[in-house]
């Protein structure tokens, strides 16, 4: 008999989600869906508030990547004020973003995903977590914890707190790095680099070990989107938007965030609070694209730092050019930590990083602005319309994780079809389906920022599944 298996909640991810797996009469998987079941409401309730509050409010969209919202919001404010950020301000913002990449990617790899690799997909679910890792391999766990701590502390040294620092503002940043901060970063960098080397070597071993998983953990053609610099190099803050395909061909390049509506659409499905962005010229759902570490690594020509470029060449040799398996998100994430550490090292030695000339001041000079930044999970857009006093009239946010929604659904379906046969489903098989989602490191706090209240619908269901009573309220 046809039935549905629901994984509820999906664990070791950052947010609230379920997965439904639909089995047909003979126990084969006919479909699978990734449901995001969280919903708060920023686009609407920010209206009527001063534009200057947005960095502080939108940081609260997400405790994992508050820096992304700080930066996208501040960049939107730069445009509304029509100011040029002083060079020191841009370098400081870049440094904080690189620190965030480091901490967020370390969290994804060590705390959330490595228990699957190290303890096993089928290991005891009570111990398959970061505490299990601490018991099984304390030195590795400690190194991972300290790598994340490095990123979080750089953020704190710049913005005075690790989470929700109200530091980036329209026009620049509030304060530069202190000399004490500079010394701390310099002293701690070698340890962080050493940990990253351990993680890279470890992951390359997993690649050999989990070749079969990598084949089905979201291997499919799609577009990839992200920011690149003017020479096509890896970008995380400035630059322009590029789309490439699975063969590495450039589909669109030099796109500006200002007219994102021309190339990005957002579809809605009834079974998820997360919308489904797609590449407009190809329509819905054919315009599937992926963002985040895998996309950034696929679309760029090079990182621009020696060790990360060396690793990128090896990555491309191993995956055969363009990586089309979402399993490689983990690998791309490690390359991005390496590049971030190298770029932090460059910045910490830059005289501008302690310059007090890090903010331009201005009033409201444009009534509309779009800001873009690369969050750890992908490209993030903030779009504000304001009145003459800077009071928000309309807000739209396109969040990184949402843009992977089509890809995440395709991934869980592929994994479920591969591993699940018959009505008896071992727990370890369901964990593999969840692990497909963990590849994307989805941030569902972020992605379900959307506004509003839902009409209430209460169902009283009897033991045999029949609906005894229903109440609707709108």
């Amino acid at each position, binding site marked *: 008999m046809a039935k549905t298996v*629901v994984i*509820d*909640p999906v*664990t*070791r991810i*950052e947010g*609230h989600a*379920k997965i439904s797996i639909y089995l047909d009469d003979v126990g084969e998987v006919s479909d699978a869906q990734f*449901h995001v*079941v*969280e*919903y*708060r*409401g920023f*686009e*609407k*309730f920010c209206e009527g508030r001063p534009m200057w509050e947005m960095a502080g*409010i939108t940081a*609260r969209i*997400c*405790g*994992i990547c*508050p820096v992304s919202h700080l930066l996208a919001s501040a960049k939107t404010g730069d445009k509304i004020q029509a100011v040029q950020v002083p060079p020191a301000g841009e370098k400081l913002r870049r440094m904080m973003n690189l620190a965030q990449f480091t901490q967020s990617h370390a*969290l994804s790899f060590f*705390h*959330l995903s490595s228990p699957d690799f190290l303890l096993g997909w089928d290991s005891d*679910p009570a111990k*398959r*977590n*970061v*505490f299990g890792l601490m018991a099984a391999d304390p030195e590795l766990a*400690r190194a991972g*914890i*300290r790598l994340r*701590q490095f990123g*979080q502390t750089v953020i704190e040294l710049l913005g005075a707190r*690790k*989470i*929700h620092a109200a530091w980036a503002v329209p026009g620049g940043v509030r304060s530069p790095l202190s000399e004490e901060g500079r010394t701390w970063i310099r002293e701690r960098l070698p340890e962080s680099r050493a940990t990253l080397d351990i993680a890279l070597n470890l992951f390359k071993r997993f690649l050999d070990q989990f070749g079969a998983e990598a084949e089905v953990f979201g291997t499919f053609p799609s577009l990839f989107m992200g920011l690149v610099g003017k020479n096509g190099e890896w970008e995380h803050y400035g630059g322009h938007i590029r789309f490439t395909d699975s063969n590495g061909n450039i589909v669109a390049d030099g796109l500006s965030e200002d007219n994102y509506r021309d190339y990005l*659409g*957002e*579809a*809605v*499905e*009834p*079974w*998820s*609070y997360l*919308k489904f962005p797609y590449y407009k010229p190809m329509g*819905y759902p054919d315009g599937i694209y992926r963002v985040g570490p895998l996309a950034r690594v696929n679309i760029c020509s090079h990182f621009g730092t020696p060790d990360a470029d060396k690793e990128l060449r090896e990555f491309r040799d191993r995956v055969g050019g363009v990586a089309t398996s979402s399993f490689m998100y983990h690998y791309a994430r490690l390359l991005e930590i390496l590049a971030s550490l190298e770029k932090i090292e460059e910045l910490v030695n830059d005289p501008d990083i302690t310059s007090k000339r890090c903010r331009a001041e201005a009033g409201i000079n444009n009534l509309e602005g779009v800001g873009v930044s690369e969050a750890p999970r992908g490209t993030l857009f903030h779009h504000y319309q304001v009145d003459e006093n800077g009071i928000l009239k309309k807000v739209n946010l396109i969040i990184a994780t949402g843009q992977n929604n089509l890809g995440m659904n395709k991934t869980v379906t592929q994994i479920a079809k591969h591993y699940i046969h018959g009505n008896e489903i071992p727990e370890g098989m369901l964990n593999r389906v969840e692990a497909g989602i963990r590849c994307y490191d989805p941030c569902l*706090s972020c992605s379900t920022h959307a*506004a*509003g*209240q*839902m*009409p*209430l*619908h209460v*169902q009283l269901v009897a033991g045999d599944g029949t609906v005894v009573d229903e109440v609707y309220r*709108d």
Partner: protein
Amino acid sequence: MSEKIKLATIWLAGCSGCHMSFLDLDEWLFEVAKFADIVYSPVGCDLKEYPENVDVCLVEGAVANEENWELLLKVRKRTKFLISFGDCAVTANVPAMRNMLGKADQVLKRSYLELGDVTPQLPHFPGIVPELLERVSPVHEVVQIDMFIPGCPPSAPRIQAAIEPLLKGETPKMEGRDMIKFG
């Protein structure tokens, strides 16, 4: 060896910043592991069902939808010492900004109809996508709370100062700016 306490964390409507701040305990997490077993947590445990007889649970986030409500009631029944963890849990904070808005259909129109350019519709899938509550509430409006740790998020040193005594079976002193300041 003495029995470890059973520690859980749950996360309702919030940004996960409080859970991130918990992870900012960094190497002190090894101390947590000495005194506690993590029996349920979205980021620290793979178990799907909230167990019985939990000693201490940290609740992040406000109560904003039917699932938050149901989970919280279950957690209260199965937990001895429940902690309202962070400003969203304590005051409903940012998620409650939607309480000031008018009719639900007006705001839903913005998110899913006006900004959804193809297949515009309101997400609705009984049993899967939870309905939002009319009003977002702090957790103590729904269940009895044994302790509050405010902050947006509470810093890791504050979390440590609050839970270190609990792990050893003592009651922490929640007083002074370092322990109870909001924001």
